[in-house]
């Protein structure tokens, strides 16, 4: 019994000792970032680990913003080498990176993620504009006098007489889903930006507090909202933040039905109910072409080509960013990036499109491959 403390001390010494030995360097690539890119990055990492002599990279799913924050914290074994992102790096994040000594960042565009609005093949194809989408699904919309009112629209033809006279019934993902975030930002935000009063609000910067408050008064928003944002962030909010809260709020009166994270379930419900419209990732539209067809949005049909060319408005680019300072220090970073951007992975017949990634056009892919090989840093 006397030996217990001795054993414990020995254990502690062992633990401490190996910690010292490790702190010096790291031989596993550390990747953080977007949960949308995570399924693609893990597939590449697995193949990379199995088919080369390098260790398999470690990939955390932290979200795009969280990933960039960790990435920009500095240079050294304690910071990630690569961050995945389902949007482009923001100027503020880039500046943050520069300030912390992360000067050379290589941007790698890996493909696109499209979000489709679709309905049953038994019903005619919808032709919508982004503004229609916003007006159909927003919680509050500007009324006739410019003040926000609860969304009054019950049927599609109330929004635009050319649309069918059916009830607005949209099945979509819950707020926890990344698809929902992207849909809110691209479709709802894009539609709201077509309403002049909201567009003006979005353009106001943080130091135009008077203008922001005036715009809010015109929209009938209580001044407390501004104050709440100010207190939450500890700094004056931008017009864009207020725009986001207005534009991204989805109605809760039953017209928008949260159908869970399972996109297959949404497809099944659409097949059973020809009046309903569903929101899901493009890959499910492609897989279920016999049951549902995609709505035409702003005149563009969601297809492989229209998404990869960027014509389809509800699509977003996916990226990862490499910390150039770590290349050569931590083994395998560039090799991993080369594997990711190879024809075998990202090409049209590659294994990533198999998992649902919308690949780049041929010439863009070649450009990206060349960028990765020469590690051209990003300039913003």
């Amino acid at each position, binding site marked *: 019994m006397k030996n217990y403390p001795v054993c414990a001390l020995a254990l502690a010494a062992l633990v401490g000792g190996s910690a010292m030995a490790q702190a010096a360097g790291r031989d596993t690539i550390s990747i953080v970032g977007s949960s949308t890119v995570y399924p693609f990055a893990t597939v590449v990492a697995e193949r990379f680990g*199995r088919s080369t002599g390098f260790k398999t990279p470690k990939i955390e799913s932290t979200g795009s913003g969280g990933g960039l924050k960790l990435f920009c914290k500095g240079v050294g074994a304690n910071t990630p080498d690569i961050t995945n992102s389902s949007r482009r790096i923001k100027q503020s994040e880039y500046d943050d990176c520069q300030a912390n000594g992360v000067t050379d960042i290589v941007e790698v565009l890996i493909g696109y993620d499209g979000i489709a609005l679709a309905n049953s093949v038994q019903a005619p194809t919808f032709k919508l504009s982004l503004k229609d989408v916003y007006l159909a699904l927003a919680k509050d919309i500007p009324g006739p006098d410019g003040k926000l009112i609860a969304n009054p629209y019950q049927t599609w033809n109330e929004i635009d007489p050319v649309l069918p006279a059916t009830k607005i019934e949209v099945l979509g993902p819950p707020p926890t889903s990344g698809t929902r975030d992207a849909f809110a930002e691209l479709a709802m935000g894009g539609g709201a930006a077509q309403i002049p009063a909201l567009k003006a609000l979005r353009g106001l910067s943080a130091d135009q507090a008077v203008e922001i408050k005036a715009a809010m008064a015109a929209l009938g928003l209580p001044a407390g909202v501004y104050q709440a944002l100010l207190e939450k962030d500890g700094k004056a909010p931008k017009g864009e933040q207020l725009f986001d809260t207005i534009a991204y709020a989805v109605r809760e009166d039953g017209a928008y039905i949260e159908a869970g994270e399972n996109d297959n379930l949404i497809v099944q419900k659409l097949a059973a109910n020809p009046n309903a419209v569903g929101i899901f990732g493009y890959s499910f539209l492609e897989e279920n072409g016999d049951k549902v067809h995609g709505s035409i949005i702003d005149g563009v049909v969601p297809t492989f080509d229209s998404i990869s060319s960027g014509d389809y408005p509800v699509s977003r680019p996916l990226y990862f960013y490499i910390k150039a300072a770590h290349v050569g220090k931590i083994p395998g970073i560039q090799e991993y990036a080369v594997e990711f951007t190879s024809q075998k992975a990202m090409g049209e017949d590659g294994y990533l499109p198999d998992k649902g990634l919308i690949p780049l056009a041929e010439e863009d892919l070649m450009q990206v491959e060349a960028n990765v090989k020469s590690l051209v840093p990003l300039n913003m």
Partner: protein
Amino acid sequence: MSKQSSSRASAAIRASLKKRYARERRFQWYGRLAVLIGFVFLFILLADIVSKGTPAFTQHYIRVSVELEPDVLGIERDATRDQIFNANYLGAIRASLRAMFPDVTGRKEKQQLYRLLSIGAEYNLRDMVLKNPGLIGHTSEIWLRAHAEAGSYLKGQVTADLPESDRKVKDMQVAWLDQLRAQGRTESRFNTTFFTQGDSREPEMAGIRVALYGSFFTLLVTFAIAFPIGVSAAVYLEEFAPRNRLTDLIEININNLAAVPSIVFGLLGLAVFINFFELPRSAPLVGGIVLSLMTLPTIIITSRAAIQAVSPSIRQAALGVGASRLQTVTHHVLPVAMPGILTGSIIGMAQALGESAPLLMIGMVAFIMDAPAGVTDPSTVLPVQIFLWADSPERGFTEKTSAAIMVLMGFLILMNGLAVYLRRHFEKK
């Protein structure tokens, strides 16, 4: 007291006695019902997990005659090890499949045919050839891992009765699989991969090795920190500390700490150990420290109870024959209290083993394939692996999730059983 009034009283007692007995019987029945309900729920949970998880312990293989000609593999006859490592095994496997089903021509049909086999089949084949380079230049019958979707059909989880659109295995694949089965080219084996491999994006190649190692290292760190600190604190507070306001305050705080939600410890770990001390992310070292903070109160409280339970006569006898206070504690009190202390510690460790929330904050929720070699290598733990798999879109991960839960529960039962054994064993002494 008159005789009459006493007999009236006893009549009243008799009448109420019946009622009281009835009440007790009813109460006992409520108790039995409560136990029964608990058991029913436990049974449903276990039955669900076991029935879903059991298929994960078998893996189907398909026997393919693979032509390992150098020109198919794209290598020279006297290839070096490096060349063999990088040879085109995928091409060889696909060519063999085409040769077995020569009437498959269309691009889509071919893709479906290739999907019968796991993506990992080429790596398995590579490892086989690396071990035995003599295979090059010959055509051999080789058992290759089946794809999870094909496996689910072979296991009978998916039947051809379902409409084709509702299942992942398409009609053509069903026909091929039936044909292969009739030829004796399919086989079910125990799934060793589940224990010898790390995480994977393909269900048929995913395993819990990284999680097992990670859990082991994490618990090692937790024990190394929480046990000595917890026991020392308990001994000091029980045997040496004066009873005053300060020690009362400490006691209240320790009890409070035991009830703090575990995610709070994760936030603390992120702020202090990773951001301030710059310890590596995703490492069992940080996970262990965080979990030791979480289990410390449990260990202190149970150890104090165990020390308190040691009869004062033992202390008095020791002091009486001239032992110092330290000798009394280390030679007499601690050995007697040890079973209780160990029981408490093991239960604390079992708690730590099942914890995932605090580890979310310190980066242990990650895709990791290579098993950690020490406490600073990135790794996950069992509950986190379960969380990751439960979230995966591929159907095959459902059974892996349940199987991992079975393994985790097995360890918990083992640890709790050990605690019970220690208590029984030492109490007899």
